[in-house]
């Protein structure tokens, strides 16, 4: 979008809802906001119907800060908890059929590339572990094999939270869930390994314990997808309801799980590494030049 498009015509500014005015005057568009600024600007996502203490919601808020061009970002999602928050974000959101995200994102990204030759449009898939590793698995894998240039972010709460606690492919082996009454019979799917095999340019495993790292990782993934190829972030976003994590202990759980089995990992393909190192050098050079 252009700033001109979203500005109110003279004389009408005062009649727009306060929230719209705030988004224009002090929002996240046309500037890269930082995590350290949280609380001092109008966020893309504020009110939402997610459960109290939900780690997924925190993660999604941080994603909106990480996106490098929020005003040129479109999110594809699917059924599940995450979309309850994402639909409340001030960014276009495609709510498709369950499991269709990476196929829809393929058509969307290719279509936007045809229409907007000089303006990068970032397409981001943000969906749950069930939506991406189970029902949407084939679409995810083939979008990676085809090297589609968009980012896939898995909100991995290791359960079908929205339908009431059934095991997904990303649930840990042995967990007793609503459709695994004697415990889940097979290991948590290695989506990061599959992503690497499929030729994904950049993958990251992350828990929302370090907000700045979350925002930076998301920014990195979106920029690499824009220039190099598909990127994938697998984020631990616990379900405090289905895993019975007391609300005040949600971040303690995230830290424990991170330490135990979900530590931060990232992988760059050779092309992605070259691109990222060069773009970082350029960013530092510009920063130095700006200081002089």
């Amino acid at each position: 979008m252009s700033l001109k498009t979203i500005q109110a015509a003279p004389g009408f500014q005062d009649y727009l809802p306060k929230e719209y005015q705030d988004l224009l005057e002090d929002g996240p568009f046309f500037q890269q906001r930082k995590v350290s600024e949280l609380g001092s600007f109008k966020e893309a996502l504020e009110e939402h119907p997610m459960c109290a203490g939900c780690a997924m919601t925190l993660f999604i808020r941080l994603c909106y800060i990480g996106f490098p061009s929020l005003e040129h970002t479109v999110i594809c999602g699917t059924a599940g908890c995450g979309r309850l928050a994402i639909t409340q974000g001030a960014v276009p959101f495609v709510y498709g059929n369950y499991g269709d995200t990476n196929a829809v994102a393929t058509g969307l990204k290719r279509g936007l590339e045809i229409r907007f030759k000089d303006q990068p449009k970032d397409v981001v898939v943000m969906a749950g572990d069930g939506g991406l590793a189970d029902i949407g698995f084939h679409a995810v894998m083939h979008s990676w094999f085809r090297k589609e240039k968009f980012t896939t972010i898995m909100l991995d709460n290791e359960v079908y939270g929205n339908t009431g606690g059934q095991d997904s492919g990303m649930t840990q082996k042995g967990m007793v869930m609503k459709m695994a009454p004697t415990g889940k019979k097979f290991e948590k799917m290695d989506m990061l390994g599959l992503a690497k095999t499929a030729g994904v340019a950049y993958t990251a495993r992350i828990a929302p314990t370090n907000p700045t790292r979350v925002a930076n990782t998301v920014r990195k993934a979106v920029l690499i997808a824009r220039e190099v190829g598909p990127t994938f972030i697998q984020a631990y976003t616990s379900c405090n309801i289905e895993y019975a994590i007391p609300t005040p202990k949600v971040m303690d759980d995230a830290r424990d799980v991170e330490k135990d089995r979900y530590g931060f990992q990232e992988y760059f393909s050779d092309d992605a590494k070259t691109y990222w190192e060069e773009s970082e050098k350029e960013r530092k050079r510009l920063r130095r030049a700006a200081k002089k």
Partner: protein
Amino acid sequence: MIHVLMSSDYLMLEAPREKEFITGSEAAKEAIRRANVDIAIAYPITPQSETMQQVGYLYAEGYIKDYYRGEEEIGVMSAVAGASRAGVRVLTATAGPGLMRGMEAIVSWPGARLPSVLLVMCRVVNTPLAIQPDNVEISYLLNAGGIVLHGENQQDFYDFPLAGFMTGEKPEVTLPVAVAVDGFFVTHARGWVNMPSEDLKLPPRNCYHEAVPMMDNENPPIRISRDAPIQKSNFISYQMHASWQQEIWAAQERAKKWLDRWLGGLIEIVNPKAKTMIVASGAAVSQSREAVRQGEEQGLDIGLIKVKSLRPFPGKELDEALDHADRIIVPEFNYIGWLSKEVKSAIKRSDRVVAGPRVFGGMTMPTELILETITGIKK
């Protein structure tokens, strides 16, 4: 040198045409050559594959901006939904079991108001698995919410896709269009097709003149996006969903005037005063035309109505055109007889309808079968 036309009318109604003797697949290719398609997404299935291969050659020649083979039909039909949301003109095609596989995505297109063209080359869908002609799959499309056209021959497979793009993209319509033909009879056989020069093509899709915003983030930011779930359990949500569905079917009605304009009417009538009328769509029309001719040789006065558009269904037009008829014969290439049910529900005195003859599972429809149904005399 390609001339992008300012008006769709010129290509459909005014440009001088020349005849070529080509297959249905080639006719569809020639339509797509002139349709200014931005992206085509393919997946192989008999008897459709050849058409999307031909469309691939158009991409290689530079007529289409993007083209790829998707992973399977759910992936393809979902990608069509993504591309249409991006505001580009998008094409795909499928057949039989492929249509069934893609159906979850296909039925979501009208509600999302996604103009596109889906070519359907009908074949058997049910077990035992076969690739033979049978158009039972159209019955599933009839309740999907999109526009459904049924072509009789190679000429229709040239004209209908172009009319489909133009109609579906009209602001007051904003719907996907399926163009079905009977596989093999149309796709793999040759027929005469009248076409304008190949250096003409339709104006591009004008996506900002449609019923819903594009998902391109060129709109003012709002909290609830266009595709927000209407899943809350309250009466406002129910009302929203109900009125949204009503609007889809109202948009179909609004498509009628454009289909009238570019297809020369939703129906075609042959020998309109005959007391015995045949109503048919697709390849059954060709067989019925021949039955009418043979009947005339035998001194039988038989009329024929070709139904070109199944959605919107020309119920009022059929009711008026059949008001005088004593008997109405509905020959079909499927077991369940979906067209006869449609006709019965649209006309007065539906006991005049003879629901048949019907062939299925790959059988051909001899003209004698239609005449026997009319005369009641088996030879």
